[in-house]
Structures are given as structure tokens and as C-alpha cells.
């Protein structure tokens, strides 16, 4: 009887806990409209929201500070949509519209954002919010890529590539003064830069019929030109790790004559305390002789997530945030380029930013990136290979071919079944290679190291317990967290690894570990080695200790010195343990995620993108759960197969005998 009572009450308790958690509202819900944006420097958004709250006290808006990287913030939005708790106000980049709308995550805004209203905004910016005939996004700020130049160093700015090259030849002298800095890291910004060269040479990614025409002579010209910038030393190699803020930092420290960046930089460069105040000019980005200058359209806008309880309230905020008043706040406090045409002629603005007259021209000619629901995937491909070209890992010809094939494969593969896709999936092949390289370097090394350490620990000496404890530590610490530490240690110039190697004399110059493909792979292998060797040590040590002392004595009487003792006795008897450790390690190495995701995100140039990172991106970034599951299952079978193989190969006759 008592038993029954206890069981029932336990069950009820469990049920009540579960349901209360399930049913309890999330503490952040209820009437709060959230949006994610970058760090609110200058407090622009805080001001906008404050004024909005004054006018609409019944609506709460919350600005969440997210990472600087737009890709990261996009991931955050995507995850929130997938999770069923969407972030209400979608502060989106121009390139997100197609994907989000296609996935049905956005509410069409047609009923509020009328054609008359649209007229007041920059056409390109409005277009970027349209998908399949409906409008999903109201532009908050416009953006266009352009060329900044040092008025004091270059009296008349270049318009063509040739003019540009001449200036570089003449006036730049690295490493003190580079010619140009831009965004060369593997991320969305790189695509913006690349497209400016591509379009400026008359090339295209996808033509009007939807065919991939990237692999063309114009494309080759563009890539070659970009590569030349680095090869000739006109752009520093560090550009490979630059996003907007890094290029701005370098330019404002006077390290380069030119900079490619967005309009926001102007305001910062002309602040009171800026050393370059008054010395900077802007022009449309350079183009190849005979073609037109094109800037990539950027900018941000607000949309409403589907599933919001009260879209009317959300619209109120959007209306305010895109009003003349709000845009002025954003401009003055943050250097944001307005999206309303009229503001380019507004006297208040022109007073502080007289260059806006010129900017209007540039901005009206801005071009949007290919609007395609698979844009993230396309962008990924472009990012990968353009950065590979910049890093010198791939030749421009190779890169073009690969990019075109990969994008084709993506577009075509979507329509086929999974099996077909497997063979079309060019990215998969690449990641398989990376995974293989990583595993085949990392596992043998850590076994070698682990064996040596285990042999050492098997002997008796003072302080052995402390060594054993130390050996456990790397394995116990969280991988993802330590990866941040490794990033810091491999940093250039603040990294301790460069410093130590320089001091010992093993290096002559500091290396940009994480910016070069082989350096990044090395760093990943090294960090992984550090973490997992302890595990191997423990298992092998256990094995060593099961070898009876008598056997060792017997074989030494039989005439074996330490080396032969190892080969004839220790190693064969250690095999069962080697087997266990090997299976664990191979599976772990093949499935590595945490370390690489945090350390390199798979870069540079996708050189460290391993299988599991790819599968993760397929599932959560490209939103193709089905294909991801398919790949996972295949991977699982492969692992099982490899495990069996290892077991076969490492089982000696005597274990099978009975």
C-alpha cells in the first residue's frame, strides 16, 4: 500500500513540475517587442526607443545587443524562428529578405507600407525588401560600399583600376603605409567587396534567367585583381581577418591610403578626437576601364515576424523607427545613412555631412546582391573561395570553377533527391577531405604522445600524483571555452605562442596562425591534441598497469632489452586498450565541432570546415533538416563501419581463442 502511495505521489510531483515549467510563460514574453542589433554605439537606438516609449507608453520595445558579425545575428534570428519563439522585430540585412520570406517567417507588410510610402525611400533599398511580389521590410538605413581616400596624400582620387594601381605603385610603402584596407575575412562582408570588383568588371553571378555565369573572363579579372592587391603588398595580409571595424581601425591609425567601407565610417573619422578629421574624402568604388562603378547595396530594415501576437503594435514601432525624426537620430548619433530620399537634401544633415550630396549619387546606383532564398548558401560559397584566393590557397581559375560548380550544385541539387545530391554536393567532398586530414594527423600524434606519457607515468618518481592530476585537467575543461583561450594564444600580435616561439628562436617572424589555412589547421590540431591526449594517457596507463610484473621479468631474462620488451610484450598486450582508445578518438575526431566552431568557424577559406560543422550549417543555417538527417545517418554508418574495422585489425589471435 505504502509502495503504491509513494509511486503515485512521485508521479504527480513529476507531472506538476513538468507542466508548470511547460506552461509557465517565458519571463521575457508578454507584450515586449524584441529586436537584435549590433552594439548600440552612441546610444542611437536607445534614444529612438526612448522617444517611442514616450509616445506609446503601452508598447514595450527591447533592443538586444548581439555580436558584431551579421552572420551570427542572422543565425540568432533563424534559431529563434525555428524554436517557435520568434524575435518579434526582425532587424534584417538586405540579403535576408528572400530567405526569411521564402521560409514563411515574415509577415507581409503590404497593408501598411503602401506604394506611396515606398516612394519616399531609396528605390534600391525598398526593392531589397521585396520578394515574390510582396513587401516584407521597411528600410531603416541605406548603405553602399565606397572608396575612402586620404585627401592629404592623394589629391585626385582614382576611378579606374589602372589609376588605382598607379597610385599604389607610387605612394604606398608597406608595412608602414599600405595602399588599401578592406574586408577580407570569410564572412558576408567579403562578398560585398568581391561583388564590387566583379560588377565593376562587367561580371555577374547569376544571369537574368537564373543560370550561373560566374565562371567568366570578367570573373577571372576581378579575382585576379583582388589577389594582386595582396600579392603586391598593397593590402596587408592581415586583411584576411578584417571585418569593417578592423579596416576602419587600421585606416584611422593612418596605415593605409584607401579604405573600402560603408558610410558609417565617415562620421567616426570626422569626430572631434579623430586624427584624420577633415583629411578624408569619398568616391564611388573603382571599376575596370570601360565599365561602370557599382557599389554593393547594404543597409538594414525592419520586418515583423510571423506569429507575433499584435502586429499592429509592431508596425507602430517600425513606422516610428523609419520616420524622419528617427532617421536623423540614427544619423547624427551613429553615422547611419538614411533610407529616405529627402534626407539627402535636408539642411541639418548637409551641414554636418556635406558629402551627402555626393553620396546620394552613389547610393542611387547601389546594386543589391542576388535575391534568392538560398542566398546564405551562395554567399557562403563565394565567401569561402574568394578568401581562398586572397589567402593564396586557391588560384583564381580554380576558385571560379569551384564556386560556379558549387552554386550550380546547390541550385540544382535542391530539386533532386538526397542520393543524387550527394554526388552533386561539392562542399561535402571538401569537408570530407578536411575531416580526413584533421583526423589522420591528430589521432596518430596523440597516440604517440599519449603512449610516451603513459610509459613515463608508469614508472615511479616523486610527484607522480601531481603529474597525473595535471594530465587530467585538459580533458576536463570545456572545449568551447578553452578554444577562446586558444584563439587568444594564437593571436597576432598579442598571442603568447608567437612570442614564445620567437624567443626560443624557432620563428623568425610572427605568424598569422588563424589567418592562414595551414596555420589554422595546425592550431586546431594542436588544441585538440592538448585536450584529448590525457584521455589516451589514462586508458593506456590502465593497460600498462595490467601487465603482470612477472611477464616483464620473464622476457628480460629471455634476453629482451627495453626496446624489444616493448615490441614483443608491452605493445601486444596493450592492444585491447589501444583499441578502446582508438575507437573513441577516431569517432571524436571525425565528429569534431566545438573546438573548430569557436576557434576558426571552419575558416579561413573553409580549410578547417569539418563534416559536423557542415551538417550543422545545412540543418540550422540553410534550414534543410531533411538532408542534414540523411547525412547524419550516413555518417553514423560510416563510423560504425570504421569501428568494426578497428576492432578487426587490433584483435590478436589469442583474444579470439577459446
Amino acid at each position: 500500500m505504502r509502495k503504491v502511495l509513494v509511486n503515485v505521489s512521485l508521479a504527480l510531483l513529476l507531472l506538476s513540475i513538468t507542466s508548470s515549467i511547460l506552461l509557465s510563460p517565458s519571463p521575457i514574453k508578454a507584450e515586449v517587442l524584441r529586436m537584435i542589433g549590433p552594439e548600440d554605439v552612441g546610444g542611437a537606438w536607445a534614444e529612438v526607443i526612448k522617444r517611442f516609449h514616450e509616445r506609446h507608453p503601452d508598447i514595450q520595445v527591447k533592443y538586444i545587443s548581439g555580436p558584431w558579425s551579421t552572420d551570427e545575428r542572422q543565425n540568432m534570428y533563424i534559431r529563434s524562428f525555428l524554436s517557435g519563439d520568434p524575435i518579434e522585430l526582425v532587424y534584417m540585412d538586405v540579403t535576408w529578405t528572400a530567405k526569411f520570406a521564402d521560409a514563411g517567417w515574415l509577415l507581409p507588410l503590404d497593408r501598411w507600407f503602401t506604394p506611396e510610402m515606398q516612394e519616399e525611400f531609396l528605390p534600391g533599398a525598398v526593392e531589397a525588401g521585396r520578394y515574390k511580389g510582396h513587401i516584407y521590410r521597411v528600410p531603416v538605413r541605406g548603405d553602399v560600399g565606397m572608396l575612402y581616400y586620404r585627401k592629404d596624400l592623394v589629391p585626385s582620387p582614382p576611378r579606374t583600376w589602372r589609376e588605382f594601381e598607379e597610385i599604389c605603385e607610387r605612394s604606398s610603402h608597406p608595412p608602414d603605409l599600405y595602399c588599401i584596407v578592406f574586408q577580407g575575412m570569410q564572412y558576408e562582408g567579403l562578398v560585398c567587396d568581391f561583388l564590387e570588383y566583379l560588377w565593376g568588371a562587367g561580371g555577374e553571378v547569376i544571369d537574368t534567367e537564373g543560370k550561373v555565369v560566374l565562371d567568366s573572363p570578367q570573373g577571372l579579372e576581378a579575382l585576379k585583381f583582388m589577389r594582386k592587391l595582396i600579392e603586391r603588398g598593397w593590402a596587408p595580409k592581415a586583411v584576411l581577418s578584417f571585418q569593417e571595424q578592423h579596416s576602419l581601425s587600421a585606416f584611422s591609425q593612418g596605415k593605409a591610403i584607401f579604405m573600402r567601407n560603408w558610410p558609417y565610417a565617415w562620421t567616426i573619422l570626422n569626430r572631434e578626437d579623430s586624427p584624420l578629421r577633415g583629411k578624408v574624402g569619398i568616391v564611388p568604388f573603382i571599376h575596370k576601364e570601360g565599365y561602370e562603378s557599382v557599389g554593393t547595396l547594404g543597409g538594414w530594415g525592419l520586418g515583423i515576424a510571423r506569429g507575433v501576437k499584435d502586429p499592429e503594435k509592431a508596425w507602430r514601432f517600425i513606422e516610428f523607427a523609419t520616420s524622419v525624426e528617427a532617421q536623423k537620430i540614427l544619423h547624427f548619433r551613429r553615422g547611419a545613412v538614411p533610407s529616405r530620399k529627402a534626407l539627402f537634401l535636408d539642411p541639418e544633415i548637409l551641414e554636418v555631412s556635406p558629402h551627402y550630396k555626393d553620396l546620394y549619387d552613389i547610393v542611387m546606383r547601389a546594386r543589391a546582391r542576388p535575391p534568392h532564398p538560398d542566398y546564405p548558401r551562395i554567399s557562403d560559397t563565394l565567401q569561402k573561395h574568394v578568401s581562398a584566393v586572397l589567402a593564396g590557397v586557391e588560384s583564381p581559375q580554380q576558385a571560379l570553377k569551384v564556386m560556379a560548380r558549387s552554386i550550380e550544385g546547390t541550385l540544382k541539387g535542391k530539386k533532386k533527391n538526397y542520393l543524387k545530391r550527394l554526388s552533386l554536393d561539392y562542399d561535402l567532398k571538401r569537408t570530407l577531405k578536411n575531416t580526413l586530414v584533421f583526423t589522420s594527423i591528430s589521432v596518430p600524434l596523440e597516440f604517440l604522445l599519449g603512449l610516451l606519457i603513459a610509459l613515463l607515468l608508469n614508472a615511479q618518481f616523486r610527484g607522480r600524483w601531481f603529474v597525473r592530476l595535471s594530465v587530467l585537467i585538459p580533458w576536463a575543461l570545456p572545449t568551447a571555452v578553452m578554444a577562446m583561450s586558444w584563439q587568444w594564444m594564437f593571436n597576432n600580435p598579442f598571442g603568447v605562442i608567437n612570442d614564445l616561439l620567437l624567443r626560443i628562436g624557432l620563428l623568425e617572424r610572427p605568424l598569422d596562425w588563424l589567418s592562414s589555412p595551414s596555420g589554422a589547421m595546425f592550431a586546431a590540431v594542436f588544441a585538440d591534441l592538448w585536450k584529448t591526449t590525457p584521455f589516451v594517457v589514462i586508458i593506456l596507463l590502465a593497460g600498462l598497469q595490467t601487465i603482470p610484473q612477472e611477464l616483464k621479468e620473464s622476457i628480460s631474462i629471455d634476453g629482451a632489452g627495453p626496446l624489444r620488451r616493448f615490441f614483443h610484450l608491452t605493445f601486444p598486450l596493450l592492444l585491447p586498450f589501444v583499441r578502446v582508445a582508438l575507437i573513441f578518438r577516431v569517432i571524436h575526431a571525425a565528429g569534431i565541432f566545438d573546438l573548430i566552431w569557436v576557434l576558426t568557424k571552419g575558416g579561413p577559406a573553409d580549410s578547417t570546415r569539418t563534416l559536423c560543422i557542415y551538417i550543422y550549417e545545412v540543418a540550422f543555417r540553410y534550414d534543410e533538416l531533411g538532408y542534414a538527417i540523411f547525412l547524419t545517418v550516413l555518417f553514423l554508418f560510416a563510423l560504425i563501419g570504421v569501428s568494426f574495422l578497428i576492432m578487426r585489425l587490433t584483435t590478436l589471435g589469442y583474444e579470439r581463442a577459446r
Partner: protein
Amino acid sequence: MRKAAFFFLGILIVLYCLFPFLWTVITAIKPPEEVFSLPIRYLPKRLSVENFVEVFYKRPFSRYVINSLVVATGGTILTLALASLVAFKLRYMPVQRALMLQRWLLVGAIVPPTLLVIPVFVAIKALGLINNPLGLILSYCFLNLPFGIWMLYAAFSRIPKELDEAAMIDGLWWGGILLRVILPLARAALAVSAALIFIFCWNEFLIALTLMPDQLRYTVPVGISMLSGASIYEIPWGQINAAVTITTVPVILIVALLQRWIVEGLTAGAVKG
């Protein structure tokens, strides 16, 4: 002579293992200016807790810590509770079948989380537990169950069945036997399993990243990896290192206290495997 060589090698190994952690701590206790000073200083000119203060102030880091604690503790308790029940039942099965089941469990324990993240995500989403600590707790329980059952079964099977019979004669029902006889006797194994599972949950990254997209629900590893540019110019390495220090010190403490049993536990597993 040989002893000296061993000792020296031992020191090398200790340095190799502990250096990254030590460097992190050193960076964390430097005042923010010194973090970026060149040439690199190995010993800070002065000590400061500014980085730690910033970390808690600028980001909801304390929230992350609480989230991690909730999830790790909940995961550990749930896992051990279920594992005890299963291991207890396994005790009564004929040894052969139990061993076979064990082997399958081992397979389950080996599968890396990266493979399971998608099915787990789909399942948790279906339950509507995204962004809910319970979702993460359930997932961790699922992932650690094979390991927990394995460890506890090894410990339970060493307890002679006669004790059960004596307890039954004394009038205890199965739950009582479990609670009053078996678990107390298996204290050591419970402690080690608890420690290892806790460490696993504390350290886990991928599933936490996937199941808790809401920033306020981040666990510590996810939170740290998202610490990016506070200003346009720099990544706050001082803060990051401080955060890493805070995260890793508890783990080190646990490992230091329980090192002998942890090694024994893993060793025993290896011998069986």
C-alpha cells in the same frame, strides 16, 4: 640519475598541460591596458579584478552561470536517478544478457553529440521545450544515460545479492532496498559518476547552442563564445579570459578532489571494454 630525468620530464608534461589555463588566468588578472601591451608581459605589473567586474557588468554573465548550474545540476540528478533504476533492474538479469546490453550501451556512449544534435533538436522542439532548461536537462540525461548506467551497474554488481535478500526478509520493498542498501554502498561510484556527468553538462556546447537560442538562456560556454566586439575596435580579450577563468575553476576543483576515483572509474571501464 634516472629519477632526475623522469622528474624533469614530469615537469615538462605538467607545463604542457597547465600552461593554457595558467595563461588565461594571468591575462584575466591583468588590468585591461596591460592585456594588450606589447611586448607581452608574463607577469602582470599589477593585479586587477577589472576584467571580472566588466564581465559580470557588461553582459548577463551571472545569468549564464545560473543557467549552467541549473542545467548541469538538473541533468546530473535526473541522469543518476534514472540510471540507478535501470542499473538496479539490470542486476537481476542473467549476467550474459546484462553484459550484452552493456555493450550496446557502450555504443551509445561513444556516439558524439554532434551526430545526435539534429534528432535531439527535432524531438525537443516537438515537445515544445526549446529555450526551456528542461529541454536541455532531458537531452543531457539522454546523452549521459548509457555512461551512468554503465558505471552504476559495475558498482551495483559488486554488491552481493544476499544483502538484497536479507533486506527483503527484513521487509523492505524494492525502492527501499535501492535507497537504503544499494545506493549507500555504491557511494563512491555515485560520486564519481555525478562529478563526470556534471562536468560534461557544464562543458557541453553544441546542444546548448542549438536548444537555447535566446540570449538570456545561454549556458556559460555558449555565452563566452558569443562575447564579441564591445567596441568597434577590439574584442574584449581581458573579459573573455576572465570569463574563461570563472568557468574553468570549478571544473578544476572537482577534478583535483576526485582525481583518483575518476582515473579508477575510467580505468575500470577500459578494462571491461
